[in-house]
């Protein structure tokens, strides 16, 4: 996930306090206390004037988690948080997300990352995550497609581990072809299906161009076959 800001910002001290009204029940207090911690963590990274964690904050979070900000796990975190806008976490998203993860501190969050990875890789979630990754890149209103550069990076990030050879070839192709300058959601989802449907790679024997694959994949397969001959 490419955040906007490039410079690091040191984490501000844990100084903000959370107000709570008196006369609450114990469990509520516990909850609020938990909420407190989450909120406090939020405020550590949030941009106080905007009231949200902005790219700088995210970068700081990354560094504290010991994770590169281009690491796929941050994208997974965004997915878990159901973050709507790329490079930003709202307070609501933060709260809901961290609660879902069952963490309320930085250390716990760090520990939860491997589990999050496993969760994402579950078949029932994976496609959802994959689609989310694309939509996360639609930064403008009414934007429907993503430029080739970003798609290539995204493919690497999201599919690279599981489908390395396919991704490498596909990325190479996307960069050399000039039929398409952007990729839309339909094409995006079909990249995953292409990898998942066990099209034999790299010979692509069982690929059938008369089936309903998007044209870009037909062209990709043709390009591969020409390369191999």
């Amino acid at each position, binding site marked *: 996930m490419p955040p906007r800001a490039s410079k690091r910002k040191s984490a501000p001290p844990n100084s903000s306090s959370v107000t709570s009204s008196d006369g609450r029940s114990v469990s509520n207090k516990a909850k609020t206390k938990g909420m407190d911690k989450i909120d406090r963590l939020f405020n550590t990274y949030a941009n106080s004037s905007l009231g949200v964690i902005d790219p700088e904050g995210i970068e700081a979070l990354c560094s504290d988690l010991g994770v590169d900000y281009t690491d796929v796990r941050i994208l997974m975190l965004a997915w878990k948080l159901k973050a709507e806008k790329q490079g930003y976490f709202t307070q609501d998203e933060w709260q809901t997300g961290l609660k879902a993860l069952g963490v309320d501190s930085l250390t716990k969050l760090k520990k939860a990352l491997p589990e999050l990875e496993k969760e994402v890789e579950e078949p029932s979630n994976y496609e959802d995550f994959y689609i989310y990754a694309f939509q996360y890149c639609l930064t403008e209103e009414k934007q429907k497609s993503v430029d080739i550069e970003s798609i290539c990076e995204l493919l690497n990030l999201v599919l690279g581990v599981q489908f390395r050879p396919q991704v490498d070839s596909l990325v190479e192709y996307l960069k050399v072809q000039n039929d398409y300058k952007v990729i839309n959601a339909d094409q995006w989802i*079909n990249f995953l299906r292409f990898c998942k*449907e066990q099209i034999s790679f790299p010979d692509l024997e069982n690929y059938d161009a008369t089936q*309903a694959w998007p*044209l870009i994949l037909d062209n990709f397969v043709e390009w591969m076959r020409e390369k191999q001959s």
Partner: protein
Amino acid sequence: MSAQKKKAFQIEAFKHRVVVDPKYAEKTWKILEHAIHEIYNHNASGLSFEELYRNAYNMVLHKFGEKLYSGLVTTMTSHLKAISSSIEAAQGGLFLDELNRKWAEHNKAMQMIRDILMYMDRTFIPNTHKTPVHELGLNLWRDVVIHSSAVQTRLQAILLENVRRERSGEVIDRGLMRSISKMLMDLGPSVYQDDFEKHFLEVSADFYRLESQDFIESCDCGEYLKKAERRLNEEIERVSHYLDAKSEVKITNVVEKEMIENHMHRLVQMENSGLVNMIVDEKYEDLGRMYCLFRRVPNGLVLVRDVMTSYIRDTGKQLVTDPERLKDPVDFVQHLLDLKDKYDKIITSAFSNDKTFQNALNSSFEYFMNLNSRSPEFISLFVDDKLRKGLRGVTEEDVELVLDKVMMLFRYLQEKDVFEKYYKQHLAKRLLSGKTVSEDAERSLIVKLKTECGYQFTSKLEGMFTDMKTSQDTMQGFSARHGADIADGPMLSVQVLTTGSWPTQPITTCNLPAEIRGMCEKFRNYYLGTHTGRRLSWQTNMGTADLKATFGKGQKHELNVSTYQMCVLMLFNNADRLSYKEIEQPTEIPASDLKRCLQSLACVKGKNVLRKEPMSKDIADTDTFLFNDKFTSKFFKVKIGTVAAQRESEPENQETRQRVEEDRKPQIEAAIVRIMKARRVLDHNNIVAEVTKQLQSRFLPNPVVIKKRIESLIEREFLERDKGDRKLYRYLA
């Protein structure tokens, strides 16, 4: 007669006094035996039928039927043995004769014997399930005479030898042969078959095998077929004369197989005389013969048809890819028509109008005509030529004939929408220049196109005709109104074209000469006065003008020019010499059009009303133009205007192609949406098939283009992919 009192009156049979003679049977038999002898010795006249009958009757009655029957068998057998020997003794040619005679005699004898023994035949024999007399006679004849080893072999050999002799041209006794073969048939179909027919067929097969081998080495295809036909007819005749009718199909099969089927391929492909040569040389008789003969063998016609088809395809392909031929589109199409005529004639006169051949011809034409992507354009140019001048003075029927033939070619086109585009362009030119030979012919063709392709195809074309008509009326109204005040100025004739019906033109304007401008304004006001809410734009690139020009020595000519050319020439009313820029500026004609225009005015021999300095072929911005005082022409009227429709240059062709492709996209999308709306969910292959089917009357859509359109529709959320099965598309309401 005994009578009994009080009993009913009875009648009893009259009883003979039965003579119980122990030797009765033997004596009676001897009488009959003697009779049989006499019969066989042609001495029957002395016998009493009644007495013999009675004797036989009595024997059977007194239960001596068995003795009678077995006696009959023995006697006949011994007689037949003697007969057999006598036949065997006959020499050479007399064998058959003797056999035939003896057979006739035997039959007569049998009849008599049967008559005598009729009672036994009717009672004893059925009761004991023995063979009836007549049949017995036949069987005995068969077993004793015919199947006696000597007779059997000799009979067969002689029969076959006779056939062989007849085949080599000798005359044989057909009557005799007929009798013999009838005899064999009478003895039982299996006798005829086993004793004669089987061997006849075998021997014939050998005979024809050899003969066909000989012929094929020495004859050309036509001759061979003649010979084969002759042999076939001979055999049919032979059967009708002296063989059993059922043998006909068997022997003809033999001939067909040996003479035709076994040499099919060699005949058809024979160099210098095979099928292709016959077609090229239009040997209708030979072709007809080949058709008739090959029809008789399995796959014979398939072979002929296939060879013909590949020949047509090859020649057709050559025709459409030959650059020389393609230089003249009208000539090219004429060649296509001639080719079609040629094959139609062959199929009608030699191939008895066989539908499968007609289909093969159609598919071949469809195949090679569409190999050349310019076929639609060329056909339109051909029609243009005909409607412009080719059909001048031709009778109405003949016009219809030509147009029908053109329609035939049109039907073969896969890209009918390309034809439509060109046809529209060419028609526009014809209508606007008034250069159509017969409006009836034009209309007739439109009707034919409508019948073929539907109302949509021709609605715009019809619109063009309507516009012309309406414009005439408009002009009448205009002259009526403004008649007086325009009488002095140049004569204006306006055609008002409805955008959308006419081929799209790039928007061009130029500055018209003042005199013209005034007139145009008057017209515009007149028109808009009666048609409010409309917008008129002058199409200066489509008009023509007639100019009266006077040259140096006073020669007067009438120049027929385009509007652009008129603008240029009018400038020379005020100057004898003008530079390119001095022409470009006031007229504001676009550069490429201006260059073309000046070229036709200054660089074409016989039409050079202007002179150019320098005298180079091409127009340069730096050129100067002078009024050509010395212009001469044989004709009073000189036509310098834009010429008739021509085949497009390569770049123009590319452009038209592109426009056609662009036009096809929405049509494909509309088809996809229509189909998906009806079916709701459909897989990819089926969509492609359905779309192709829906559009095939206009053009053959490219599956890749269809896929692209589908994806575009997905992006615009008209369709989506099914969430479960990626291969299905779903209509989004």
